[in-house]
């Protein structure tokens, strides 16, 4: 199986969501792994697949932002000072060395091995930079009762907690969610780098990476993040991950129409 990794340029919300959908379709059709790390060309609110649009209106800090609806579930995310990743894997993707690991055909629900692979990689990458993050579990909640533990149905993803979320100093810094289609799984994740005025309650990594990566141009700064994720996927699955300089080098069949629903009001306001 082939795999491709791209540290992409910043794009608008609609384009980012449509591209991720295409990566998912490519993974299903061509049985390859597609990994993309990216930023957003302007501050954007992404709603979870099942979130009512009206809820955004009760969130004044972000209510005027551009908005898109993701194909993945979970809570809303303010994409301002974050790096987003998208990984799409075919249902033949398996983690090596796990006795019970089998292709995901006829599976339903989340791919825990994919989730763990990426979240462990982020914890490891942060640790290599001296940031002692950990994966959240209910026992963390007992240890850190207080502002870190908030409603599981909160509007914002980073105010929710579920097992496996990456937390640092009681704050969630990485959350991810998946979508299944026949033949493949898509996982979206967001690493919150710093506090945004559009989500002022969330500090994320509070700029802790600034001293290490902040002096570089944004696309270079996320290069190390991408490489670490790609290496983790390769180590876990044995898939050789190739670096791409641009999407044009990818195996995406551009003759297929790219999804247009993400630009439509009927999609964004469907709930």
């Amino acid at each position, binding site marked *: 199986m082939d795999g491709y990794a791209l540290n992409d340029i910043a794009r608008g919300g609609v384009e980012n969501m449509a591209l991720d959908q295409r990566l998912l379709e490519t993974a299903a059709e061509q049985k390859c792994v597609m990994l993309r790390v990216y930023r957003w060309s302007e501050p954007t609110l992404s709603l979870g*697949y*099942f979130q009512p649009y009206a809820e955004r209106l009760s969130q004044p800090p972000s209510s005027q932002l551009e908005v898109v609806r993701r*194909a*993945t*579930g*979970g809570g809303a995310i303010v994409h301002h000072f974050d790096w987003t990743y998208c990984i799409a894997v075919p249902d033949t993707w398996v983690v090596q060395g796990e006795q019970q690991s*089998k292709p995901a055909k*006829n*599976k*339903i*629900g*989340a*791919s825990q091995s994919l*989730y763990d692979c990426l979240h462990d990689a982020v914890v490891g990458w942060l640790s290599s930079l001296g940031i002692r993050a950990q994966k959240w579990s209910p026992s963390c909640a007992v240890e850190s009762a207080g502002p870190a533990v908030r409603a599981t*149905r909160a509007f914002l993803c980073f105010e929710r907690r*579920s*097992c*496996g979320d990456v937390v640092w100093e009681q704050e969630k810094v990485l959350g*991810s*969610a*998946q*979508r*299944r*289609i*026949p033949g493949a*799984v898509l996982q979206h994740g967001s690493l919150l780098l710093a506090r945004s005025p559009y989500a002022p309650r969330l500090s994320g990594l509070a700029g802790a990476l600034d001293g290490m990566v902040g002096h570089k141009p944004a696309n270079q700064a996320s290069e190390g993040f991408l490489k670490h994720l790609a290496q983790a996927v390769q180590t876990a699955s044995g898939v050789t991950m190739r670096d791409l300089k641009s999407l044009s080098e990818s195996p995406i069949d551009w003759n297929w129409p790219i999804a247009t629903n993400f630009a439509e009001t009927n999609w964004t306001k469907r709930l």
Partner: protein
Amino acid sequence: MQPEELKYNPSHEWVGIEQQNGQRIAVVGITDFALEQLTDLVYMALPKVGTQVKAGAEFGEVESVKAVSPLYSPVDGQVVEVHDALVDQLETLGDDPFGNGWIIKVKLADDAQLDGLLDYSAYKQQCAEA
């Protein structure tokens, strides 16, 4: 309904047959195995009465804590009843997946499609190998 008497999609939906006004109606739900895999359910989106469903095609979606997954119809036909109350009482699915956890009822277009589905033992075998 008794699980042993039902037929199954490989994608974990069950179907049973009941008679309503002389018509054969397919009752569709998802299995206990699927619910275990999904873990905590958060949302469910269901079709409207009157929707035409196709065997193997998506008829709804369910969101668990970490994933959105499609639900696939085991049969062709027209949706004649939707268990809308489930959307606000998702725990019902786990409490009684083969009974009060039914999701939709479909006016069967082709009885022969049932023959192409898994029986209980074949489905259990698939689950054991998953």
